[in-house]
């Protein structure tokens, strides 16, 4: 094990190195750039043997990643914010070609000029395309979820691309203490060669990927992708089990409950905001107020079963969205819509409220988390919801 004080971009690069990737396609954009810098350094220093292709744009970058993966290479790429948006045409066709590309998205606001603060909307506009997506809470988890990503994406029952999201600055640029495993242990979990699959371009067995398609084929292709996403739930469970066995950590696959014991109300969110939440909820517990936090680790596939089982025991769920869907139902956040819908069939369902927080990279303090925890606790006591969607930290 190597102890380091380092950022999420470095831990992700280390996972990529341990995955022994063959091809990296790169184009700089903050806050993703740190990963490509670190990978370039690793290659220059002889620590990693991979093709490193600097592209002319994100569109090319993701096309190259897709094509390299179609040739059977293990690939890594990534972007952020508008860069991710610019790659959109390539992003759209990657899942339907069923190639296991792994990408890092350094979440970034879309794009009030130059605002590189975190917002999750950049990746959530890709929600419905067939990319798997997960959110680490800290750089340590960023390593874990990246390494697991290859194993999940390359499983022949899945074969879908995979995104590791990282909160811009807070996880990509802040140095935390982390323990990174030795390369041999990582190799035990993830062998250098991916499992064989049917859709690899090779001169020995000529085939064509993604020829012209019309209405005779479209629906079946979508249903195949749907099945792959469903399969990914079970595969993810197994991969987590294996990871936890080998590394002695790694956490649950979809939903992690934090300080939920004895709580009637919980906050819920993805990514780094679990950190101030933990600190706040622990303080409140010492003061005799029991509120929990439910950390959603993976959003695609969304495990309805895990989410419902975790949330059904509470009276109130306050979903924290670092994203927004203009004009949506209740005009709220994207994750809120999904969580609320997942709970609909419960005969005795919790009340679900929504907090819009941290947009454009606005800071999230322990104090803000404390006040939100108290608020959901109050709703649990009185049963009264005054406002379904509430903006937090806004000047009004």
């Amino acid at each position, binding site marked *: 094990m190597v102890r380091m004080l380092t950022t999420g971009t470095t831990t992700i690069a280390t996972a990529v190195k341990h995955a022994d990737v063959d091809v990296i396609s790169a184009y700089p954009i903050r806050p993703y750039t740190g990963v490509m810098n670190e990978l370039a350094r690793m290659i220059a220093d002889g620590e990693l043997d991979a093709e490193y292709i600097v592209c002319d744009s994100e569109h090319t970058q993701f096309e190259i990643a897709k094509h390299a993966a179609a040739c059977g290479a293990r690939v890594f790429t990534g972007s952020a914010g508008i860069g991710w948006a610019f790659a959109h045409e390539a992003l759209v066709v990657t899942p339907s070609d069923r190639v296991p590309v792994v990408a890092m998205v350094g979440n970034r606001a879309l794009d009030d000029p130059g605002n590189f603060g975190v917002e999750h909307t950049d990746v959530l506009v890709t929600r419905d395309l067939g990319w798997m997506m997960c959110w680490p809470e800290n750089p340590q988890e960023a390593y874990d979820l990246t390494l697991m990503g290859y194993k999940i994406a390359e499983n022949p029952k899945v074969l879908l691309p995979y995104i590791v999201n990282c*909160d*811009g600055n807070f996880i990509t640029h802040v*140095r935390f*203490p982390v323990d990174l495993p030795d390369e041999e242990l990582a190799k035990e979990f993830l062998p250098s060669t991916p499992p064989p699959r049917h859709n690899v371009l090779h001169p020995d067995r000529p085939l064509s990927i993604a020829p012209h398609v019309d209405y005779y084929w479209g629906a079946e292709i979508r249903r195949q992708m749907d099945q792959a996403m469903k399969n990914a739930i079970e595969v993810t469970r197994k991969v987590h089990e294996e990871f936890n066995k080998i590394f002695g950590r790694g956490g649950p696959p979809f939903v992690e409950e934090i300080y939920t014991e004895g709580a009637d109300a919980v906050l819920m969110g993805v990514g780094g905001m679990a950190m101030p939440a933990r600190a*706040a909820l622990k303080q409140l517990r010492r003061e005799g107020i029991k509120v929990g936090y439910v950390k959603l680790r993976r959003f695609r596939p969304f495990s309805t079963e895990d989410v419902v089982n975790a949330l059904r025991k509470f009276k109130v769920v306050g979903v924290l969205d670092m994203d927004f869907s203009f004009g949506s139902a209740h005009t709220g956040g994207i994750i809120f819509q999904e969580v609320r819908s997942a709970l609909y069939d419960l005969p005795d369902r919790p009340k679900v409220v929504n907090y819009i927080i*941290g947009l454009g990279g606005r*800071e999230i303090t*322990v104090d803000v988390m404390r006040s939100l925890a108290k608020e959901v606790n109050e709703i649990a006591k009185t049963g009264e919801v005054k406002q379904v969607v509430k903006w937090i930290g806004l*000047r009004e």
Partner: protein
Amino acid sequence: MVLVAVEFDGRGVTQTALLRAASDIICAAADREGNPSLGYERYDDAPDRVGVPIKGFSVISKYEIPKDQAEKDAADAALPVDQVPAPVCDLSHYKDCYEEVAGEAMLYEPRSVDAVLVYDDTMVRGGEPWAHIGLQAIHEKLKDGGAIVVNSKKDPEFLLNFIQPTNKRYILATIDAEGMDKIFVVPLIGAMLRVAPGIVSYRSVIYAIKDRYKAEGLKKAEVVKEAYHKVKFIEVPPAKGPIQLKRRSKRFEEFPTWKEMPEGIVVYAPPVNTPNPHYKTDTFRTYRPVTDPAKCNKDGLCWLYCPDSARSPDPEKLFEIYVDYCKGCGVCAEVCPTKAIKMVYELDFKEARLW
């Protein structure tokens, strides 16, 4: 549990890597004692602008600060550096401390700091990195009783003239760090250990430095020790009476609300040929250009080449600088064919004080 933090104040481009270096040393020292930490540079800084004030931080959570830390450090600092005992790594409160410090991870600046290390003494005047932030005093985030340690050949008393009055009490220290080591954050940290004990211990820094600089480790550790003993410092009492400041930083609540902001991300420009009243870049400046009238041939190259339009077009006024906007880049002095422009150390000017 207690949170402690250190702020590093430097200038864009030339000192970017040194923000990281200082933060890494402090965090590595904390790690040796079993205390989790965060290290980061301010995210919205654009350190590619020459001279722009930039900041970095180390934030540490520890179970407690030993009451006798200053005495322990003094005893260690009396020993030859190769005989300083190794720090004890106590992990008994690690999980709690980690949770506490990670709770501070979603911020761009710590809520408060125990020490400020200043890389360039002209920065004690404060820094204005962006228009909307305004002028941040050097003690903006400093806790009451904290320490400011400046890389400077000057005495603390002299620098005090340029620092905004404050209700806080603090220690102002100087050390000629650049004269002691090219990597001047090493002596700056040594000086900090003396005037702000308890953030990290002397011995943990010695070991972190030895480890970091490998073959040169012992030499650098000597520099830490020398700085620890050499640092000059004064105690600054809180200012008496109400404080009036011409320029200060803007509080979050003072920004316009969403209803007041013009829609569509619009910024109205000042009238043509008038300087921008909102954004002053004078805090980027370490040296100020001064034109010698005897040598100036009024060719106006300084005006033409100034990358910031910070000179008046008037030859009769020798293309005088707009003092609020000159960044002190030195381009005008460089292009002047008669060598009429000298770059003069900013603190030689009385009006360099910004309050």
